[in-house]
């Protein structure tokens, strides 16, 4: 998750001119999307694949409207039994009809739920795919800048929470537009007074829902953030339990987790209190409406102003009139949660035109597009050329800065990497070594200046063809869940077992792999074995061999190696240098001594270059770095 060399992405060394907001705190979040825009975006997605949502709404509406024949027949049956003394036998037909209507209604409602579930499946799947494309199709610096725990939560749970909105809320909203109107019109025809009661109280419900809903929206958002924080904190805690125990701070951290949990509970209850309030208002209106109809028809019935079957049908229909609204209210909480989640999600997703551009450019920052446009012929050329010992790569006056940083990470760097040779980058931490490395692998983009491979301009951030020619050996390579073999094949999925073993031998990794309990099949990753730093490093070198990379950017491991391992790594790196252009972010004297060329960086600029003996003889920055200078400058005083 750190950069290639463990060098900071936005490190705060130096200039106090860096604005406070860009200190090494969290990277700026992408602006969230407004609830309205989130809803519109969701509806656009629903409309794009309308079959299931339409089926859901139609089936649910049919179910709702079947309440009319159901109430009519039931009222007639009860009328016959109660006022006309009719028996079971004489009403068999009506009773059978009632059962039929009930069955049809049950089937419609079930079909509506099924279609809603399918509709949700379609939309969530699309959202996930888009999100995956966006998060993983981008240059990794985008990911580094954000809290990983939160990303995972957003991507997975966020999408899951959008599902119920599509499954239930959207179809139910459509039902609300149809069913109550149908029932009210029927009631109006049957008994105008009752119809008027329904028509007056009905519109109040959406009004209430809207009023309370907009109030609850912000709260739902807050609750969502609390969950994100909880997740991030959980990750922090798990990775750091050892440290917490060593400092005897486990209780304090538990308290902190409690605090976040408590905040989550409060925020959720806040949301619910309002969400339920809208439910309460809704329920109250529905109950009062039903009661008003009951009392009104009851009193008129007593004075003979209305017939019993009509009165009973109206009474039975009154709750059915409110039912769609009540259901919508029941889904409203899920709906708000879903929209809140969607707002966060959409912040990751590009709007339409941007999406097209991103798909082309693999999400490279805009600066490079300009440059790429200026050198359109460059890409095919880099594809074709395959130098036997790697390309000659040169940087000319390259300036670069990390997104959101004011201070350039590189200030006019010019250097050349010779084919089939080792070039070493040296300098204090923060001097810009890993920025050069990132520039070459394309996770940092040049603002100014150019990069040439065998004289042809390349934009590594943009060119997949360029990346196909190179390999990266980070100090702490990530171990992916899977076997050693799968981890190696990452560099070339089609590689045969023999090729993998050969690469591992070249990297001096074969011996330790064979010693693992399952050899090449040993599972790695946090579920499997952990490897030492030296072993991980050699796995990454083996990947470079397996890939047949022409340019290898190697962040030399600076720690953890015993003499035997160190000698093994040295042999592997030597072999690597023979067959490719090799840039090493160097920490070892032995490495720089063998380097064809040494580039000394300081404060993002090249201060010296040459070979070991020549640089040492000069007694400059390089000699000081080695501690061989005649007089080392005194370290700056601490403020």
């Amino acid at each position: 998750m750190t950069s290639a060399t463990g060098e900071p992405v936005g490190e705060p060394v130096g200039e106090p001119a860096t604005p406070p907001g860009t200190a090494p705190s969290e990277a700026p979040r992408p602006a969230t999307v407004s609830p309205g825009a989130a809803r519109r975006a969701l509806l656009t997605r629903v409309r794009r694949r309308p079959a299931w949502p339409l089926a859901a709404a139609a089936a649910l509406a049919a179910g709702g409207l079947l309440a009319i024949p159901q109430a009519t027949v039931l009222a007639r049956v009860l009328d016959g039994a109660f006022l006309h003394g009719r028996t079971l036998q004489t009403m068999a037909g009506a009773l059978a009809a009632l059962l039929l209507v009930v069955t049809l209604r049950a089937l419609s409602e079930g079909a509506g739920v099924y279609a809603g579930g399918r509709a949700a499946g379609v939309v969530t799947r699309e959202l996930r795919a888009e999100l995956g494309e966006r998060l993983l199709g981008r240059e990794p610096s985008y990911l580094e800048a954000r809290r990983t725990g939160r990303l995972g939560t957003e991507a997975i749970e966020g999408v899951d929470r959008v599902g119920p909105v599509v499954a239930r809320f959207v179809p139910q909203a459509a039902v609300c537009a149809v069913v109550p109107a149908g029932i009210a019109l029927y009631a109006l025809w049957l008994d105008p007074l009752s119809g008027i009661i329904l028509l007056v109280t009905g519109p109040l419900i959406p009004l209430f829902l809207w009023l309370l809903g907009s109030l609850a929206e912000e709260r739902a958002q807050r609750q969502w953030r609390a969950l994100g924080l909880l997740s991030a904190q959980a990750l922090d805690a798990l990775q750091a339990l050892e440290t917490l125990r060593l400092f005897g701070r486990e209780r304090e951290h538990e308290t902190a987790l409690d605090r976040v949990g408590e905040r989550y509970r409060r925020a959720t209850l806040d949301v619910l209190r309002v969400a339920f309030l809208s439910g309460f208002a809704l329920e109250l209106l529905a109950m009062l409406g039903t009661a008003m109809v009951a009392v009104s028809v009851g009193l008129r019935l007593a004075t003979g102003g209305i017939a019993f079957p009509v009165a009973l049908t109206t009474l039975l229909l009154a709750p059915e009139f409110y039912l769609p609204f009540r259901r919508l209210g029941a889904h409203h909480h899920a709906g708000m949660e879903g929209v809140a989640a969607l707002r966060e999600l959409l912040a990751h997703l590009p709007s339409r035109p941007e999406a097209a551009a991103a798909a082309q450019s693999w999400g490279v920052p805009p600066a490079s597009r300009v440059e790429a446009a200026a050198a359109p012929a460059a890409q095919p050329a880099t594809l074709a050329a395959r130098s036997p010992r790697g390309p000659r790569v040169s940087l000319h006056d390259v300036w670069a800065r990390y997104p959101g940083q004011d201070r350039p990470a590189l200030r006019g760097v010019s250097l050349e990497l010779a084919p089939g040779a080792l070039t070493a980058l040296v300098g204090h931490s923060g001097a810009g070594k890993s920025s050069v490395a990132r520039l070459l692998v394309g996770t940092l983009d040049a603002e100014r200046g150019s990069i040439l491979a065998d004289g042809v301009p390349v934009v590594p951030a943009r060119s997949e063809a360029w990346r196909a020619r190179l390999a990266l050996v980070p100090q702490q390579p990530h171990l992916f869940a899977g076997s050693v073999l799968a981890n190696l094949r990452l560099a070339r999925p089609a590689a045969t077992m023999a090729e993998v073993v050969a690469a591992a031998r070249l990297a001096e990794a074969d011996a330790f792999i064979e010693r693992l309990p399952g050899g090449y099949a040993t599972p790695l990753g946090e579920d499997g074995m952990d490897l030492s730093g030296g072993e991980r490093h050699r796995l990454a070198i083996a990947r470079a061999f397996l890939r047949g990379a022409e340019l290898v950017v190697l962040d030399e491991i600076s720690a953890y190696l015993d003499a035997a391992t160190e000698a093994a790594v040295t042999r592997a790196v030597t072999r690597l240098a023979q067959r490719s252009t090799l840039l090493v972010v160097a920490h070892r004297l032995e490495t720089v001594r063998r380097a064809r060329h040494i580039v000394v960086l300081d404060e993002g600029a090249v201060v010296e270059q040459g070979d070991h003996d020549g640089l040492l003889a000069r007694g400059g920055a390089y000699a000081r770095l080695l501690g061989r200078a005649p007089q080392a400058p005194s370290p700056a005083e601490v403020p």
Partner: protein
Amino acid sequence: MRTVMGLLAAHPARLGAAVGLAAAMVLAGVGLLATSGYLIARAAQHPDTVLALMVAVTGVRFFGLARAALRYVERLVSHDLTLRVLQRLRRLVYASLLPLAPLGLGGDRSADLMGRLVEDVDELQTVGLRMLAPVLAAVIVMVVSVGLVAWLDVPAAITTLVLLLVAGVALPLTLRGLGGTLGRREARLRATRRIVLHDAIQGAQELWVFGRGAAFRRRLDGLDAALARLGAVQAKLDGARESATVFLTLAAPWAALVAALPQASAGGLEPLLLVPLTLGVAGAFEAVQPLAEGLQRWGRASRAGERLEQVLRREPPVADPPRPRAVPHDATLALRGVRFGYRHGPVLDGIDLTLAVGERRAVVGPSGSGKTTLLRLLARFADPETGTVSLGGRDVRTLRQQDLRAQLAVVPQRVALFHASVRANLRMADPGAEDARLWRALQDAELAEAVASWPAGLDTLIGEFGNRLSGGERQRLALARALVKPAPLLLLDEPTAHLDADNERRILDRLLEARPDRGVLLVTHRLVGLAAVDEIVVLDAGRIAQRGSHAELAAAPGTYRGMLLAQQGRLDG
């Protein structure tokens, strides 16, 4: 599951209130339907005075209002209960993970563990909110409503009871069987997807360079597709459940009417009562409706519960003694004949080592020689198989772990910083430490200059795991943190691994200065500054190969001299 039930039982008043309110709410609905039916039927008989209807009118209004109010309160109470249970559960999980770290956690992915902590715990809310309370409420409603119907007409009561049992017991149990399997499969797929996503994000750099991002996206997509297929099956189940529930709810009044009609025709039942009876019966089904959905989620919830309990049941590698002894004044740490191994044979064997206040010792050896394990034994994250670790002559197994660790300031190899300010990270070591002391520690760790140059100084926030600092800065911050801790023994595991030569030398010189109030144990593979150390212990493959001073060891042939020669070829050593 038992754990969650136990937690629910820990709030008996809230649980009782939730159940009582839920039952009362449904019964108010039954009352509303029945009284309004009665009102209409009575009115149809054209009573002499409207007053005859007033009781029913009042009943209709009362039940209507009560229902709305009861529902609001019930939902708040039950959600509050759920969230409280969740919070306790979360804390329980954390508390049970803690004693396992770092040695007892092996075999779990941190991404998966996080999933446990957040997702599983959230999943378990279905147990309280959607299962236990609704079941209890449904029982109450069933008894009351069937009793009321039986008071009017026994055959109608029997059909109602049967249909209620079908809707409330048979249907949920059938769906539980189907949903359980589905839920387990879904949980497995979700766990895999989480791991792949974790890899894709944590390994983004490698994936980017190797152009494997697309392959990972395809894998995620494949998992999504599998989950979507399960989702389609789930939708079918949901639809079937909805159909069955709606059917039973609407068929119940029909059946009750059919059952009661012969009685009414025969004069055994006042025909007027057919109306409230038929209408009221439908209301009772509201109580059993949530059961089907609740139990259908059983699979997911029980899987989450199983996984949680797996974590909860794990045996921690060490435990505090029942009656801990006081920490001795003499803070001398000693290992005697220590042997320790993980799964694949011994890592340490026959280790004797002491560290007293005022002493400086080093343990050196190539990687994999057992140095880190040795430090973890000293901090008692595990106990040796044979031999003893003691502090001031007392076996550390007789001390409280916290008391022991309070004597040690440790810089572990894997530095963990927190997403908080520099100051908060440092104060972990001593919450009362003043800024002046923090600056002194930063100075000793050669980080004061850098921190002072950051715009927010000590208030600067550290990114996740401190990943917005360089490796060297992270390490120096961890070192400063250990120096803030007022502990007599300083244990350092490769404290200068990420530092350049200048910094390393300056820092080591300062750390290894002889100080009467501090003992220092330096575990390292880098032979820098070791001339200042009183005794060097050279480990090789878990055994002590050599011991002596730097001068002695450098002169004699052996592991140490070999390491020394190899190291001379280092830029930063």
